[in-house]
């Protein structure tokens, strides 16, 4: 999973059915000292994160299908690959 800062969100009324009812956040990966590393990307919010939050983002389709309780096998038609799965309170590095 990646530590990310939520930069904002994207509004799209015309979208694939799996995205209905979900907020689509713009997230910026950061390192353990919250320095920006790499490019920003999009992730579906599952934990009511807001702009400015430090969050945990998972980027793997199979995990997403499990989290969103997709039916098994060929009708698991969820084209989502990144999801926000946690809001981070603290990061400590000894």
């Amino acid at each position, binding site marked *: 999973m990646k530590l990310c800062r939520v930069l904002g*969100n994207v*509004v799209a*009324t015309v*979208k*694939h059915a799996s*995205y209905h009812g979900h907020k689509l956040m713009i997230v910026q990966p950061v390192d353990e000292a919250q320095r920006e590393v790499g490019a920003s990307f*999009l992730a579906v919010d599952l934990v009511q994160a807001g702009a400015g939050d430090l969050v945990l983002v998972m980027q793997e*389709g199979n995990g997403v299908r499990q989290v969103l309780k997709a039916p098994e096998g060929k009708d698991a038609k969820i*084209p*989502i690959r990144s999801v926000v799965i946690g809001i981070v309170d603290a990061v400590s590095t000894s």
Partner: protein
Amino acid sequence: MYLGKVIGTVVASHKYAGLTGVKLLVVEPLDHHQKPAGDAHVAVDATFQAGPNDLVTLVGSREAALALPETFVPVDAAIVGIVDQVHVERARR
């Protein structure tokens, strides 16, 4: 998943069977400032409503194929949304 801008269309009459009737669009990835952020590539339009100059959201890899009705297709980029607005908080720190 990333933002992109549709900059063109591709017509390929001779292609993999599962892709007949699927719109192919040329997209340029954008960052959250809507500045170009990667190489242009071809994506299928899973919304079936995107057109040139549209700001869109895309998904890549296997999940792109899952965006289409026929999911057993050789697709690694799919448009899954047409963007109305992009809200970016002022850069803090």
